């Protein structure tokens, strides 16, 4: 077997995951280049979400290897993946609605006051958290000026913006986005797609899981097509027509390579 390529940010080989008699992943491969948006598409039951869960640490694969920057890694929990700089944007957003934008951005990673006040009393540095939250949102051009607003007062697109800002702020390696435009209107979807590009333009590779083919073809650099628990194809988005991608996905066509 060849050595893992250090040109890849993330790589997986031969991932297998079985649930009883059902094989969700059947030797799936995966690779992610630096600074790209890689879309992962696949029909229901193709093993798309199982693959993503393995990459984000939400489940442990039965077999196979994973590499980050060419080094082997094993994740037991999402926290392990986060420690390695992999941030996941969950479909249901994982926001606390009654809490402020800043509190949500820093949830579980709060900034404490310096000295004993912070280390012993766990006293929060709210000023700094609010200021940094505003800076992060400005950076990504999310049109929210105040970070002390409760998240439940925001629109669906703005909430998605907060969730994207949170993952972009803390990700050092990879951002995984699970259906970020699901349940959003046309205008808000475009706003989120712009955000996805901006995250990439800041140098962070993005793994984008989506059912929405037009959205995939609008932003993706490469497309990973998952079928029957394996990677059926890995193609540059500009080298393939949408209809062909759907055909590979459904098994109506076999990938050329």
């Amino acid at each position, binding site marked *: 077997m060849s050595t893992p390529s250090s040109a890849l940010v993330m790589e997986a080989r031969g991932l297998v995951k079985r649930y009883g008699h059902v094989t969700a992943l059947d030797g799936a491969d995966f690779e992610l280049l630096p600074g790209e948006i890689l879309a992962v598409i696949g029909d229901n039951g193709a093993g798309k979400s199982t693959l993503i869960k393995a990459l984000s640490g939400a489940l442990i694969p039965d077999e196979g290897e994973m590499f980050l920057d060419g080094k082997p890694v094993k994740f037991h929990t*999402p926290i392990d993946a986060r420690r390695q700089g992999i941030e996941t944007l969950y479909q249901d*957003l*994982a926001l*606390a609605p*009654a*809490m402020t934008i800043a509190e949500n951005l820093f*949830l579980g990673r*709060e900034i404490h006051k310096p000295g004993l006040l912070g280390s012993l*009393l766990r*006293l929060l540095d709210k000023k700094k958290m609010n200021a940094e939250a505003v800076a992060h949102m400005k950076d990504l051009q999310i049109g929210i000026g105040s970070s002390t607003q409760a998240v439940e007062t925001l629109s669906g697109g703005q909430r998605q913006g907060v969730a994207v800002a949170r993952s972009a702020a803390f990700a050092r390696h990879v951002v995984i986005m699970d259906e970020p435009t699901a349940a959003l209107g046309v205008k808000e979807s475009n706003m989120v797609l712009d955000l996805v590009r901006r995250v990439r333009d800041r140098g962070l590779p993005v793994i984008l899981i989506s059912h929405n083919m037009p959205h995939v073809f609008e932003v993706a650099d490469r497309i990973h097509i998952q079928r029957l628990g394996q990677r059926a194809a890995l193609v540059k988005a500009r080298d393939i027509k949408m209809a062909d991608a759907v055909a590979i996905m459904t098994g109506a066509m076999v990938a050329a390579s």
Partner: protein
Amino acid sequence: MRHLLERMPPVATFGPLLALLAACAFFASQTDRFLTGQNFSLILQQVMVVSVMAIGQTLIILTAGIDLSCGMVMALGSIVMTKFAVDLGMNPYLAIAGGLLACIAFGLLNGALITYVRLPPFIVTLGTLNIAFAITQIYSQSQTVSGLPDALLFFGTTFRIGQTAVTYGTLLMLGMYLAAWFLLRETSPGRHIYALGNNPEAARLMGIPAQCLLVSVYTIAALIYGIAALLAVARTGVGDPQAGQTDNLDSITAVVLGGTSLFGGRGTILGTLIGALIVGVFRNGLTLMGVPSVYQILITGILVILAVTTDQLSRRRM
């Protein structure tokens, strides 16, 4: 009416305070004996035990839980500390520590069953309510414990502010509210309690140690019931095995009147203090007006329904 309510989003924050002030103004206009320092000191003493327990209840309700066992755990704590001091002749401070530990043990039991066995808080605390009550009756043989050493009575003793005698217990209660306010607003564990009640899945995914936090909340609440036990002993001068039987519902009433949501994640600790004071002011004012006590219960019931209704209406537009 509905339209007006909908235009005032933060009803939950200032509504209880307005209700308290309105009640005070009403009773001040009805009787001269209401608006005196001595009467207010009395009201604070009357609400002291329940309002301290309501701090623990608030922490638990913020996590979307509930604690029905609090009054019985408090009674057990007071029997343990008084019997240890009187019957065993133990050093009174060690006896107090024993009472607090008995309460903490129940908090750990509640917290562990709810967190690790994943049983509903309502059922777990309904069970421990009965267990704590039975242990209290068995251990005390349903007898009141009297002849207490001074150390157990300290928080019932008073000092003077001008003409008004204030108990040290009142001071302790206010200090505990300040500490809880600080914890919930300014520290990360405090904010994590809100996050846990708001969206437990998000709290877990963001790496908050949710299980450890939940067990800690039930344990700290039980420690607070232990302190309430010390206050109850100091206030009545005896260890009473029949104490605390309605305190679970009374503390929940204070929490709800204070605008905290029973669904978790929303509410303030100062609201709970105001909620406890509303009940205290109504009972005291109606007594001064010569209204029979059964009407006080009637009015408390109406207040709870009103509080929850305004809260729900003001949120519904979101």
